[in-house]
């Protein structure tokens, strides 16, 4: 129930943002949507704090707990953006990701993992925390990229409808995607470094065929690819948005493939 409440609040916030899109951004509606989003993140923080106090371990190990923490990091990013004019509207694209991740976490069960004893120490906590930041950075770039492409389409089609009015300017979305990508890239790089150091220290060597390692390295390469796409000559912003959307798709689908094929045996996440 403690972890269901944030999911319900995230869903409620999403409905409010959609309502805002459909009815036009007026009056107190925007404040309400932002407020409910903020409350959802706060309640989520309380739920995760409760988990920590109750089980004496951070919710970082085990698929359910880890996914819930990942969703929470996304919520935190959203809360940081809410006070910025118009930028908070990116919630409409980021909240579905947060909702799906939290829902999957609930389905898998947010419980302490027996593996928690094997995964401990500051290095491990830093590794997981930075990894979450990295993936949320990519999710943010994805959300900004999706909105960028919709707004771009509206402008190209000369349709100044609901989406045009609701979605932030292209320049704002591009800046947001850039922040998400660079922040995420740095965080994931640190996550890989801490993960490698922790593994070498605790396990002796890093097993390159470990699905977690494969996915992490692939994710890092995706970041590099997306950043290179933005840096290349011509059509920078537009190509950057497409690359962020595709890159996020690759990372998520790779995770799902690995989860279904290898994860069923319990060795992956």
């Amino acid at each position: 129930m403690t972890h269901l409440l944030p999911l319900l609040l995230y869903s409620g916030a999403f409905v409010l943002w959609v309502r805002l899109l459909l009815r036009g951004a007026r009056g107190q509606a925007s404040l309400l949507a932002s407020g409910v989003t903020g409350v959802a993140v706060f309640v989520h923080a309380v739920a995760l704090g409760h988990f920590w106090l109750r089980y004496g371990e951070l919710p970082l190990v085990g698929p359910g707990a880890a996914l819930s923490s990942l969703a929470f990091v996304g919520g935190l990013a959203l809360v940081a953006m809410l006070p910025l004019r118009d930028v908070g509207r990116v919630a409409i694209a980021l909240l579905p990701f947060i909702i799906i991740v939290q829902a999957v976490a609930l389905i898998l069960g947010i419980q302490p993992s027996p593996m928690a004893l094997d995964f401990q120490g500051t290095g491990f906590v830093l590794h997981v925390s930075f990894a979450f930041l990295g993936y949320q950075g990519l999710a943010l770039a994805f959300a900004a990229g999706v909105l960028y492409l919709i707004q771009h389409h509206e402008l190209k089609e000369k349709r100044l409808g609901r989406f045009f009015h609701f979605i932030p300017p292209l320049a704002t979305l591009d800046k947001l995607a850039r922040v998400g990508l660079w922040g995420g890239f740095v965080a994931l790089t640190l996550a890989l470094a801490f993960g490698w150091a922790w593994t070498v220290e605790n396990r002796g060597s890093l097993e390159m065929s470990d699905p977690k390692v494969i996915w992490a390295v692939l994710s890092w390469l995706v970041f590099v690819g997306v950043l290179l796409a933005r840096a290349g000559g011509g059509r920078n912003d537009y190509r950057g948005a497409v690359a962020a959307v595709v890159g996020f798709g690759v990372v998520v689908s790779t995770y799902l493939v690995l989860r279904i094929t290898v994860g069923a045996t319990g060795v992956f996440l």
Partner: protein
Amino acid sequence: MERRDTMSLAVVGVSHHTAPVEVRERMAFGPSEAAEALLELRSETEVREAVLLSTCNRTEVYLFSANGPHVIQAWQSLLGGKAGRLERQVGDYLFEQRGEGVVRHLFQVAAGLDSLVTGEAEIQGQVRDAYELAASMPVDPPLAGPVLNRLFQMALSVGGQVRSETSIGEGAASVASVAVQLARKIFGSLKGKRVLILGAGQTGELIVEALDREGVQGVMVANRTYERAVGLAQQVQGHAIAMERLAEALGSADIVLSSTSAPHPILTQRVFREAFPGGLRRPLLMIDIAIPRDVDPAVGHDPEVFLYNVDDLRKIVDEQVRVREGAVPEADRIIQAQSEEFRTWFASLEVVPVIRKMRGRAEDLRTLELERLLRGMDHLSDGDRERVEEFSRRLTNKLLHDPTVRLRKGMGTGGGAELVEAFRFLYGLEDHNRPSRAARRSGEGRGDAGEPAGDGESKEKMGS
């Protein structure tokens, strides 16, 4: 106390509904002229309250006066004097509203419902300026007195409410504002953005002015004749460039505004490639309002180019105007509700002196009876005397509470005049030198023609 049954709230003036621009521009008042006109109106007619609203679409004066026809006549001759010789009589161009019609009219004006372009936002500021001008006039009593003060404050609040709760102000409703809106949705802030202007034209100038207000910098002007480019550049505080340097200028521009009379496209794909040899790496907004078009449509196929021609802009304007007009019924509902609120408040002005008088009478009676009672009860201690006095006060208040509340409520729901009359009769509050309603109806009430007795309250009726 003296009351009036005539409608004492009025608005008289010209607007785009009643007068063509040639007439309106001759009747327009700048701030200093408006101040002079208000002073003149006050000195000539002793009008109690007046606010003059003058914009390019309207010049109208809001009046609260016991001597309506005389003030209106003075205002007409003032307008006539300002306009000079006209094709028709001044009165032919004027409109006039009385009573609640004034409230509704002002609320509609402030909300942009009466504007040439439905929902335009500037009128809100113009209404505020008009009110502030009247409020700042050094005259006593103030021109923006209790009635117009309340009316204009409510109008500004209604304007804000309508804009925030409906889509009346959504989108842009002129070519220039659409251009600015597009630029904002592409670049976010326009500060520091560079604009390239090709050719000269009125619409183009309006767009440049609108962009200038958003903080664009480095306006470059190119024209077939260099001298004309220099002239326009001076107007928009930009710099002229020779047509031969067009590609170079295009390469550094964020927004291109084209309105030449060239028979063929000027900005062709060849010029575009020359301007961006490595490909366009950032968004470029191109507004082509020339007929025939100045920009080759193929240029618009680049993903970073947002090319709009005059038809595209017109279509957007039409669409946005339709959206705004769709919001009119919702805006009307807000205006209706707020007009009711004003009516209730206005009606309560008349009831305040009655209530005050009734309470005064009750207090006199209470004091008198209390004195009588205590005179024969010397044995009471000071504490007991205080308790008896407190009892009398409470009893009086309780007896008066319900009638007071009901009277106030009754004033807001219509039939207020009859209610006040009944109240006066029942509590014996009649003004003995004031004629009865029946007498006034039959025109015998000579005492009704003067100004209301000044007890510090506005007691005139708003009428209907």
